[in-house]
């Protein structure tokens, strides 16, 4: 609709990304032998896929906002 409305948040987001990228060079690198905890399932961002699919489906059919974690999956006539 009004294109200028989209641009401001977009710039903010791009700035956030650049900050995140520049953060890559900061701090002490975690070594491979220190990653036992990070390998645990609850430390990944994947979670329980079927649970996530149900939950996102419910929220996207009851709220104005949706998406964010990914863009796969089918649409539906529920929103």
């Amino acid at each position: 609709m009004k294109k200028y409305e989209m641009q401001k948040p977009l710039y903010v987001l791009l700035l956030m990304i650049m900050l995140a990228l520049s953060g890559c060079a900061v701090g002490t690198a975690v070594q491979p032998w220190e990653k036992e905890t990070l390998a645990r399932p609850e430390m990944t961002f994947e979670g329980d896929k079927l649970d996530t699919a149900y939950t996102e489906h419910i929220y996207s059919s009851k709220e104005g906002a949706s998406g964010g974690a990914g863009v796969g999956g089918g649409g539906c006539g529920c929103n």
Partner: protein
Amino acid sequence: MRSGSTTKSTVFGTVLLTAALALPSVEFAYADAVPERSIVSFKYLNYQDNQGLLSQSGSNTNGLNTTSGASSAVTPGTSGSTSSGSQDRIGVNAYSVMALVPVAGEWSVGTTYTSDSVSGASPTYHSSGLAKMTDLRRAIDVELTRYFSRGSVSVGTSYSKEIDYISRGFNIQGSMSTEDKNTTFTLGGSFNNDSINPVIQPSVDEKKQVASGLIGVTRVLTPQDIVQLNVSYSKGTGYYSDPYKLYDNRPRHRNSVTALARWNHHFDDNGTDGTVHLSYRYYSDSFGIRAHTLDAEYVQPLYKGWTVIPLLRLYAQNEADFYVSVGAAENADPTQPTPPPSDAVYYSEDQRLSGFGAVTLGVKVSKQINKDWLVDVKYEHYEQREQWSLSGDGDPGLTPFKARSIQVGVSRAF
């Protein structure tokens, strides 16, 4: 199951490959290792929502006799009034089956089938003018992933069918890690092509096409901390109106930007062995909706394979530019719908486009029975109120909306 449809959608996905390759990313970023074992999971969902009564809005209005599905009966939503003065609205019974199989050490194939049975009563304007509806949705998706030493590439396709709505989707994503594997970049894109044929308006033969792209960074901060930032952009064209609403004419374009930041932290030092998941999502679209979502959950392992996960979710959005609030006449008598302003080009009285806030409280309990079997149960309570709108533009004419859901799952590794 639905092999004909799957084949069709695969062919369709191939046709769309060229377009989708030009787009940015999708899905979860930190999944770049081949699964060690095959997994088959089953999950059942029971969902019921209800909404406060404004009054006995008896008759359904204006010939909007039913929403999607074969139901022809027109009744106000009378199924089960609760003691708190609210009425049951929509109920859902769904089940899903998922399989993920590693192939030849470098590949995996994943597929999910979902059947979703919906019935109840849905408002035709604001919280009122209930129309009975039933619907059955079936969906299948397939994803193929190739793993490399420092990354992965996935392609997937999806097909979803309701009596009045068919969606075909295709997606591709790639992820690549730095040499120390402490930083992972993700890039992906998807394309959906939907057909809409409302049961009550056979003359409406519409399309909706949505292209989305995502770019993400996942970063290991410490041996107990990992963070992720995803930014996605979605551009949609086509039929966005709701044919089952009384006054509803929405723009034919909807573009959105979403930023999602997530942080997982593991408590090693205090002896709890727990993990906290925090996330914040910002959403902004060309309908004028801005939304904030905060998610927090805490994973606490207990004895003998038991795990308990309490969760809290906070959500708030402002109203869409063209949302029409409940008028004085409707406020006094909910059977009198509020007409949109005479000069309005776009208008909607869909409460999901109003300003509101929402809270979810939930708990999930799982039990790892042995190295092969996992079972879990989850309960969530959800509530929406216009007073909780952060922007203060809630519609006082709407009544609070509540829902509860129960999930039961079982998973087997081979």
